[in-house]
């Protein structure tokens, strides 16, 4: 992932400042659903996932002034992922009545001992991209006709067959494919743009 360290450091400064509520809100609305969604995917119940999300984000807030951005250690998103995954596994472990780890000093050691399942990273990325996609959809929705949008939604999102969706919308199968491809490619552009913005602005 490309790193523009200078701009990232600026936003880090904004959040560290603690008074920049707007920066915090942006941060919260992007990452809260990601953390929550990840926890749910790992099997946590609604209330537990919500608690965990609170804990993670509060700890980020509390420690914002201590956060130093070190490009060698990877992205902020990567860091948040590690923190979240750590908490999730801690939670799951405690659920299984295993001895609960205490203190933060050895959290890194414990981290190392957790097998990094491939699908963890994928899940995390999926949740993150899902947030960006939702935002992207809001942005591009107005650029397309209703019928095109329905064609896209029916096929790409709901996974129904293009011919079925087409006959419902009185569109040819070809037209459905075209509508879908146009919206998907537009969404991809927008997600990429948002991603760049989030990397540049949010950290």
């Amino acid at each position, binding site marked *: 992932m490309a790193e523009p360290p200078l701009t990232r450091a600026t936003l880090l400064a904004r959040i560290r400042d603690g008074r920049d509520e707007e920066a915090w809100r942006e941060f919260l609305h992007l990452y*809260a659903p990601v953390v929550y969604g990840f926890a749910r995917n790992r099997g946590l119940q609604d209330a537990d996932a919500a608690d965990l999300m609170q804990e993670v984000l509060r700890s980020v807030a509390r420690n914002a002034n201590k956060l130093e951005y070190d490009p060698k250690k990877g992205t902020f998103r990567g860091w948040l992922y590690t923190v979240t995954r750590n908490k999730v596994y801690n939670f799951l472990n405690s659920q299984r009545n295993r001895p609960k780890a205490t203190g933060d000093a050895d959290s890194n050691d414990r981290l190392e001992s957790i097998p990094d399942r491939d699908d963890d990273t994928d899940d995390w990325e999926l949740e993150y991209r*899902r947030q960006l996609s939702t935002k992207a959809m809001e942005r591009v929705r107005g*650029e397309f006709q209703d019928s095109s949008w329905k064609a896209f939604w029916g096929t790409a999102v709901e996974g129904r067959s293009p011919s079925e969706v087409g006959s419902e919308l009185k569109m040819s199968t070809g037209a459905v494919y075209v509508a879908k491809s146009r919206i998907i*490619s537009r969404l991809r552009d927008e997600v990429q743009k948002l991603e760049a913005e989030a990397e540049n602005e949010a950290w």
Partner: protein
Amino acid sequence: MAIQTRNQIRCPDDDELRLLARGKLNADRHATIEFHLCECPDCQCRLDEIASNGDQLFSGCIKSLNRPPLPKESAYWTAVSAVEVSITGTHFDSDGDTLPPKDNERNLDFLEPTTTPGRIGKIGPFEVIEEVGRGGMGVVLRAVDASLKREVAVKVLDPGLSQQKVARERFCREAQAAAKVSHDNLVAVYQVSGETDGLPYIVMQLVKGETLENRLKNAGKLSIHETVRIGMQAAAGLASAHAHALIHRDIKPANILIESSTNKVKLTDFGLARAEEDAKLTRTGFVAGTPLYMAPEQARGESVDARSDLFSLGSVLYESLTGRPAFDAKTPLMVLRRLTDEQHEPLHKVAPEVPDWLEDIIDKLLEKDPKDRYQTAEDLEKDLAQHWECIKQDSQDKVEAACPLRPTRTLRGIIRSRSPQKLILSLSLSFLIGLGFGIFGSWFFTPKAFFEPKNSLTQNDRGPKAIAETSRLTGPVWSIASSKDGRTVAAGLEDGSVVFWNPVDGTTSKISPHDGTVWSVSLDPEAKTLFTASDDGKIKKINITNEGITGEIQHDRSIRSSALNTEMTKVISGDRMGFVKVWDFQNTKEPKQIFEHKGVINAVAFANNKPWVASASSNKTAVIWNTEKEAGDGLILRGHDGPVYSIAFSPDDTILATASWDHNVILWNTTTGARITRIKDAHDEGIWGIDFACCGKILATAGQDGIVKVWNIDTLPPDNSDEKAVPIFTFSWHSGTVHSVHFTADGKQLLTGGRDGTIRLWKLKD
């Protein structure tokens, strides 16, 4: 051309499919390939691949959008707002209590939906009109009590705090205690709702006016007269509360309201500080909010009684006389130390004009030991009242040495960008306004109208009456347009209808093209075509003769503002998501351009000749966008302290005027974005409408105070001057907020409309 069948068409190559997915293929090829795609599975697959660029994660992501949104009852929502509150509310914020509303409607998702047009939601039985403030405890809403047909203020406990049992209980208990006391100088608490499942809220008297904090911010300091009057009334309010064992705990300028219509002082938020403290203490271990007006015993965390309120009132009066807090310091902790350990700077040093007796009174209030202070608010009230009897007869000039509000009647404040030649002109012809600049020649105001300025704070005179007005229409008026001859006036109403009015013969007719508030109306000069934009998301072009719709733009979501260009070929829309879109009536399907501002776009405008559009947002900024540029950044105008409600370009496009919730009007240089000048406190309440007359020198504003004012921009005081700007006309006959002002084409008359459901026509010049 030979008839083709699908399979005869050769498969398009990747490049062509890429163009197709980008919507950049020409229409013929597009149709051909679309036709081919119907039966070529290979190309179908390839197109899918190309569109997503083989990004599996992205495709997975799109599929996951089908997941239903989190249900309302999910613990996620409360958790998020709790985090938000704790992250953004734990800091020692010197002005945290008085932040103006941020992005309006953003954090109001706790409101129930409403079907009443013009309302943003419901809480309990109350229909909410708008957010009027946001503080540490939650949100204050202006709402309508339908059963009593009156407007009320509803204070809703922050969703984050309401989860905390202690905070919630205290909020309700304190409010219930406050509800038992009724006094002219206290904001009446009508009702407390805390038992239900929803968020607890307090229903209070809606006071139209401003806070002392605001007044101090604008005026710097107040006169001795005004300070004594405020002190006396605040003391009377406190006396009554204290008699019911109710301690305020947080007397500060932001909690002292001054009602516009009566100039009466009203104290608000009794005891609520305590609930807030509880909440924040349990959460963070320290108290939030400003300690500037705290009593020393309060700062030390000792017990608090009626005399603590008196100390705080002393601090407020000190600041009111001097323009600065009695115990100011760089950090809240230093403030706390100063107010426990140090004496305030003697008043006679800071403000020599303050009489000894008043200094004695304030010193007595600011005693460190409660035993040395006034023991009751009643005693203080008596003392102040006694002196008031003596000074109220005095001439204002004698006592009001410090009064910054008195208008000076000199002609100053020349707009900097003006050429020296024109400058001399406007100086030498002091009451020839805008001479030679306008299309319609010079303007002449009689010296009488010009030299008898009306100061809205003190005026009893409501100004000249309208020369024509409609009877009460079917709803509040939000937008006005007129034909060139002035015989057709169109007004957009909250109920989705448009009323046509002929002010000459008084006739009206009505059409109902929309399902929501008509935020914008425009007419062509001959009144043949009407353009409307509404909350229902539609922009319509209507033939007035046969009422046929000749053009319609369906916006993807509700529209909040709109404007038409001079050539009537293009229209801009602004919505609540911060998007500003430029549309062409040639292609009503897709916007020509999209600009992204943020917040709620309350107003948009086209420049007259330049390729610019401007937008005004609830995020306190206005932006000028260049439509000749593909996209990118506009010129951002920052300087308002609240949502910007209305904007207008001057006829030559050199100036953009903005009007805001913060009571101010700002004139901006459209090329540099620099502030030319500001009409500070142009109205006593938020300003909803602004318009330039064709000469470019005359500006009209309308506000929530129900008043319409007309300004000559050549005679405004210089920027940042203490001198108060004086309107050349003041019309105070509307009985509610005035939303819209519109000059007639010749600039000689002014049309206004607002919440009282009337359109009125005012004469400015024969």
